[in-house]
């Protein structure tokens, strides 16, 4: 799960130096990952730093595409050879009080895979950004980003 909320003072960030899950990825292939994984994470953080859903739609589209493409580059070079795949996930949790301290929680998520993102097209991508932007402005939902690592085989391609 990425920290931050995409604002100027709190940009999205993956603390790969302290996050045990991120660090554990080294064990996929220690001799290779030890060298390349921090570089990949560092560049991912640089791209995440400029991603903000509060920006203009066109800018956000470009930034989001950059992040998704970078994750795909990571997949091709680092993770797919180790039968793993990283996917950017967009989470939306909304809470609604039902009665007496009980809350109804709606949990939605969208995998932002390069293929899915490409299939979205301009219109759908723009709709997604406007949807997230509206949710953030109203502040009724919790919008988070996460990178999910899953088992991957050549057949999945």
């Amino acid at each position: 799960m990425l920290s931050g909320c995409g604002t100027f003072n709190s940009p999205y960030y993956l603390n790969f130096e302290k996050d045990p899950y991120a660090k554990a990825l080294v064990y996929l292939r220690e001799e290779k990952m030890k060298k390349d994984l921090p570089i990949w994470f560092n560049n991912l953080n640089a791209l995440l730093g400029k991603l903000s859903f509060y920006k203009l739609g066109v800018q956000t589209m470009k930034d989001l595409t950059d992040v998704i493409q970078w994750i795909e580059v990571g997949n091709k070079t680092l993770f797919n050879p180790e039968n793993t795949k990283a996917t950017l996930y967009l989470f939306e949790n909304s809470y609604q009080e039902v009665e007496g301290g009980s809350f109804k929680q709606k949990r939605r998520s969208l995998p932002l895979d390069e293929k899915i993102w490409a299939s979205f097209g301009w219109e759908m991508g723009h709709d997604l950004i406007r949807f997230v932007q509206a949710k953030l402005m109203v502040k009724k939902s919790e919008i988070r980003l996460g990178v999910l690592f899953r088992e991957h085989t050549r057949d999945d391609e």
Partner: protein
Amino acid sequence: MQLTTMSNKKNVNIDPSPLFLSDDEDEQERVTKETSTSFASAQNTLGAIRHNKADEEEGKQEDDEVLDEANMSETKVYVHGEKETHMEYVKIIDNSRRAFETSLASTRAFTKSLRKPRSSCGDRCIRFRATVYAFWILFFKHHGKAPGEKGLYSIFLAFSVLIAFDIMLLMSMLGHIFGPVSNFQSIGVTFLLTYPLITIMAPICGTLGCILGSPDLLKSQSSMNAAAVLLNYPATLAVMLYKQDEAVYIACVIVLWFNKIALSFVGAKVRQHLINPGFVKNESKFRDMAERQDNSMNQFPRDRYLTKVNHEEEGDELKPLSVNLLD
């Protein structure tokens, strides 16, 4: 959650997901559990030591909420980091207890809510607010992108020129505010004290950020600039117009205002470069690797593209192609 306390025995009606309910849990029935808990046994564990009665009650409640192992689902996981990667089955708490959902159902719910038409007046107002805020971010809180290797020094030069220009304009404004001192009571208060001293602190932070190469100081400078542009400068401008101040100084405040936009654009690039100086180089290296990986995958069939083959007899291990390419 309903909790009924009796003297020796407790009837606790527990909702299986006491705080958060997901869409698919709406239909779940409430489970009634009869428990006869003894707090004494709980004290024998190495858990938190509870001292007062309120904590005891809380402790019992927590114990009741612990999910029964039978309700946990088994999941296949791969264990890395040992000599050989192996597979294990582990029991995890059911999906309804997770804070975030990644299932197909949650994705379907997301796409469904995306398709909902949003054209009401309220939605348009929100969109308008979002657009205004987006322009504000674009001009004064620019996130920036790491610059390429070309033109790096021209960006540094532009940034230092803009900071020097900012300081020069500030000095001229300070000269106007304190000469005569009576000006301080009118424009001085709005310029320096609306947000206290940020108009002076921002260029100082910028200069220090340049000298020390600190992205944090540059970020502080950018935040202060945004605050000054939002309140201090418009208030000063309003007072100057009201008092019919000299046109030169009115122009000075307007130029300061526009200078902040340029500082935000160029400063963001400098900041991003200081955060990750090797961004462009590393990016091109990884992209080259990905390209070569693509080419090799097209050229060689799967059985030759080895991920891991252990030759136990010889004791050697073939590396994946990417490692060889890297080496």
